[in-house]
């Protein structure tokens, strides 16, 4: 039994690691969503964390905990000058400005000879272990969990539901929105550094617009109302391709297109019928049953 479990773990170790990394990335988009802001700069922040950490390990030989500390702090500090102007924007405009930020970072990296341009940095020593990812994820969830029900958490909810009303009630909405952007940047930077030291390499094409869209999809499919929704979404959508790989030959569709098709349809169904994400499914089913059961 234990042997079977261990061999299962061996063959799926990278999937297990990616569930954790993707969960951190999904949370980095969730932090802003939790106060109603669609900020999509996470791929840019993850790139900053990944490259900074890789350089510190490769060129300066810093110890890993210190490297991770920088990967958390640097994007967080850089989020301040980004956030001050862009958080005045609303809805789609904030999304567009932050997408542009991510793309500028990516293209900047492609054109920066010191980090080898489009090739990226390779042969980064593998220093990330799976327990590390989950320990840090647990720490992140602990922090986000403590927010719920606190004064801070209520303020975020108030901003999400009605920003002008929250402002009128004396909530400093700008500070809260900026803090959540900074927190998201820190999480993205951490995930980027963990990923870089797990896959041995970083390259600009790991931080495209598509990547940040994936993070948003994790958060929305899981459910962006609760802090563990994005984690559930990331876990579900990271494991799904593994399951589909076996299914693909049976339905006669190639695995690549099948994964896209299922992802797309799932996202559509969730946004149309389960706006609070998959984690709200049990509650919805109970409500549906209760409505149908005779008095």
């Amino acid at each position, binding site marked *: 039994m234990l042997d079977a479990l261990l061999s299962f773990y061996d063959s799926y170790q990278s999937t297990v690691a990616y569930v954790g990394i993707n969960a951190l990335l999904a949370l980095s988009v969730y932090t802003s969503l939790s106060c109603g802001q669609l900020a999509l700069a996470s791929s840019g922040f993850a790139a900053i964390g990944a490259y900074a950490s890789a350089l510190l390990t490769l060129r300066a030989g810093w110890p890993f905990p210190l490297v991770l500390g920088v990967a958390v702090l640097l994007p967080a500090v850089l989020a301040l000058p980004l956030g001050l102007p862009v958080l005045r924007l609303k809805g789609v405009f904030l999304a567009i400005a932050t997408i*542009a930020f991510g793309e500028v970072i990516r293209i900047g990296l492609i054109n920066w000879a010191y980090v080898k341009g489009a090739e990226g940095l390779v042969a980064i020593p593998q220093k990330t272990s799976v327990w590390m990812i989950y320990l840090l994820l647990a720490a992140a969830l602990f922090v986000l969990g403590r927010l719920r029900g606190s004064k801070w958490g209520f303020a975020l909810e108030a901003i999400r539901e009605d920003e002008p009303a929250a402002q009128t009630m004396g909530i400093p909405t700008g500070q809260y929105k900026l803090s959540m952007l900074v927190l998201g940047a820190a999480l993205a930077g951490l995930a980027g550094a963990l990923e870089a030291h797990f896959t041995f390499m970083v390259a600009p094409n790991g931080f495209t617009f598509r990547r940040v869209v994936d993070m948003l999809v994790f958060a929305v499919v899981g459910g962006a109302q609760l802090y563990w929704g994005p984690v559930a979404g990331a876990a579900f959508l990271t494991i799904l391709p593994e399951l589909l790989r076996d299914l693909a030959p049976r339905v006669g569709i190639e695995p690549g297109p099948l994964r896209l098709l299922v992802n797309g349809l799932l996202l559509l169904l969730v946004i149309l019928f389960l706006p609070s994400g998959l984690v709200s499914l049990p509650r919805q089913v109970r409500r549906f049953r209760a409505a149908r059961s005779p008095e």
Partner: protein
Amino acid sequence: MGQQIINGLFLGSIYALFALGYTLVFGVLDILNLAHAAVFMLASFFALALSTQLHLPIAGALPLTMVLAGLLGLLLERVAFRPLRGRADSNIAGLISSLAMATVFEAIALEVWGPNIRRFPEGTLPAATVSFRIEIPLVGGSVSLLQLAVISVAMVLVLGLTFLVRRSRLGREVRAVAESPRAAQVLGVNVDRTIAASFFISSALGGAAGILYGLSYNAISPDMGGSVELKGLAVIIVGGMGSMPGAVVAGFALGLIEVFVVAHLGASFRDAVSFAALFLVVVLRPRGLFGAASMREA
């Protein structure tokens, strides 16, 4: 120099056409249709299939493909946008549902045509369209018949849409809905039908841009939408939300700038220009260069 201006105008005409459809829906519904680039890509494949399998001449495949692309637009509206109308979070939700449809479209293209680059077979276009070049005396460059045809088709469509929106009954209804759906409804405009019509036109134009792009670069692949999706966004934001002349001017400007950047700074800087411009305009002047002041964005 002259040649670069011609090439820039050529590239810009495709950007303008793509952005025009994009901004028509953005202006009416105030929602970003992220599946626009997927329609652009699918239309390109439709044109390829019509000309290789049904042996239609490309001049016949173009209008037919535009109709098919328009139908995709109707499907998008029905599946991804209409169910969300009236929901409080419809802005963000619409963004995500259109993204979902874009993913589905890409999956279909990938399954049907495979991941590799497809090309129009030789002889789709008469050889003279590429080899025969017309010298343009004052600018000091030359333009191929194909480039000239692409620019002309794009211009005819741009002018046609401008006429439609300014002069026709449908255009008046579209503008009324853009101003206020409720007021339009009270005055007897069929809002659902008007929005559906906008989607049809928008996607048909996006499809036309796709065919022209596919023809001019002769490279069609499921990920070709990626080359225009964010740039189209840059063009409509820089040009001004919902401003059609703005989208056209910004489209041409982007084409010209890109060609000059490639010539003088190198190809890898090409995309940086559009995103840097996009970022600066959104932050400094969210209404865009030609947009009217509005309460929506600030």
